[in-house]
């Protein structure tokens, strides 16, 4: 995963609360190999009718090409399916601005270079009203912790751990392998301190 510090693109508003991961990607698409791309599944049942035709009134169909999504509270709630993030990323979304996110979704987002930026509910209201069914130029500055949508620049909240990770494009497995000695020492203590924590049975080793 490559890091990024600044993004310029187009913002669009998704005027809904509780956009859960089942809406972000319906479960029936999740057996698809990632290599085939997940962008076409993003918000599938809102974007496409039962016959597969685009719903003309849906905002992503009216305003294609968006890379910044402004939405309401509890975005990405529900299942831990990272496929919800794959759908956003493969579609081209780089940042989501919302008053709150599902905890697991937010972790998954950062692991895939997608920014879950928390903004005040009032700020979300104002941006959603200003965007309406259209788009506006948007700039995200990760180091400064600000988002600019149209004429409005506002701060967003982001855990500093996640900010560093997004900017550096860190891979946790590589980072963790630097701590191999500490992990091995913990593993050695486990058998003495909590022997009962090693599963019993014919398949335990």
């Amino acid at each position: 995963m490559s890091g990024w510090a600044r993004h310029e693109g187009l913002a669009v508003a998704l005027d809904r609360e509780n956009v859960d991961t089942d809406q972000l990607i319906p479960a029936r698409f999740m057996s698809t190999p990632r290599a085939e791309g997940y962008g076409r599944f993003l918000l599938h049942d809102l974007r496409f009718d039962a016959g597969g035709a685009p719903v003309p009134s849906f905002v992503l169909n009216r305003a294609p090409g968006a890379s910044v999504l402004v939405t309401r509270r509890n975005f990405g709630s529900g299942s831990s399916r990272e496929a919800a993030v794959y759908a956003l990323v493969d579609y081209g979304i780089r940042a989501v601005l919302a008053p709150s996110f599902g905890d697991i979704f937010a972790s998954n987002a950062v692991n895939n270079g997608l920014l879950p930026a928390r903004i005040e509910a009032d700020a979300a209201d104002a941006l959603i009203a200003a965007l309406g069914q259209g788009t506006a130029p948007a700039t995200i500055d990760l180091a400064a912790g600000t988002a600019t949508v149209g004429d409005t620049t506002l701060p967003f909240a982001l855990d500093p751990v996640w900010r560093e990770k997004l900017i550096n494009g860190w891979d946790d497995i590589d980072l963790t392998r630097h701590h191999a000695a500490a992990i091995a020492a913990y593993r050695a203590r486990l058998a003495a301190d909590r022997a009962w924590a090693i599963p019993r049975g014919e398949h335990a080793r």
Partner: protein
Amino acid sequence: MTARTLLDKLWDAHEILRRADGASLLWVDRHLVHEGSHHAFGKIAERGLPVAEPGLTFGVVDHYAPTRGGPATPAIARMIATLEANAAAHGIRLFGLTDPGQGIVHVIGPEQGLTLPGLLINCGDSHTSTHGAFGALAFGIGATEVAHVLATQTIWQKRPAAMRITVDGRLGPGVGAKDLALAWIARLGADGARGHAIEYAGTAVRALSMEGRMTLCNLSIEGGARFGLIAPDETTFAYLKGRPHAPAGADWDRAVADWAALPSDPDAVFAREVTLDAAEIAPIVTWGTSPEEALPVTATVPDPAGLPPADAARVQASLDYMGLVPGRPLTSVAIDRVFIGSCTNARIEDLRAAAAVLAGRTSRVPGLVSPGSQAVKAQAEAEGLDRIFAQAGLDWVGAGCSMCVAMNGDSVGAGERCASSTNRNFRGRQGRDARTHLMSPAMVAAAAVTGHLADVRPLLAGRDAA
């Protein structure tokens, strides 16, 4: 030494190191994988990495498990075959379709004694919070994190804030853990516990069986909490003793001594405290498309008129999707089918509760009953519950996630209304344009025999509520 919460004790015991920025590297005692873990196995394969601790990793076929006959489509068969191949390649114990231990991951972990107090348990599934019912630090993770656990047997995580939900008093007849969970989620919101680990406490929680405690912890994520916890006690130990993978002999005694030290210290401080009175909780049903959109079954469909504009728009959107008319009694809402199953409510106690209502009665609508595991299925059949369901006209099928997540081909048709013992009433969760009402298994049974949303309590008159 400062007073510590159950969360603190679990965290401290698993923390290998903590970075200056506050992120902890935690040891993972149990890693549970399923068909959906294919992305993660693919990630470690790309890097040529082995599974670090195959003996602490357990696989199960559940999300795509067929409940009647073979896999419904080639894509579903491929998902199962991929898990089987990955388990074989890495030497991971797999609870496959023909294994008598197979079932939903959050049902079989405890059943097998793999879930224990004091452990850290990860699974690529948000309902991993279920295992917290045993006093384990258990939380759902995404595919990148699953790959990390496979490769290192550790996970990076920041310690959440501790929150305690205390429920004192006694739950009324026909009211159970599902109602308790939906009650707090309706009050605090679907993101009400975001960023927190919830510890459930109080006399009503202590009085719950392990099955009830699992239901309560399972639904923590529907209120936004990645972690749900209940301190272990004699009920916990009695459930676990003698389970296939649970400690035995001297290990058991040592374990129980360690587990007895886990409960939060009396003067431990929680960042948030919430209290509920068990006696005030009625049987609850959801009416909307988020678990927070829930009301006592005795209420009426909410009316957007008179609400602030933002709330009115949300409520109206939910009512439009659900096809409901404001102001009508919830008990007037006719249903098309029922489903009893899922990691939330498919354990033996759940099936007994539904059967207590269904015995000698007929369902007015079609429906599925999917036990949470093959062991639950065998137990239910030994008790004759399968015959009660069949005589009521419901299909008694195999174990798996089934119609809760609609990945295996079991789904609710477009526009159909389903009374469901599951965990999510999200749009499209049980099938495109399906309408889901969440409720307890007993309440699903009540809906089945009446053909509409119904209060189970009168139907239990003169019966043992099981």
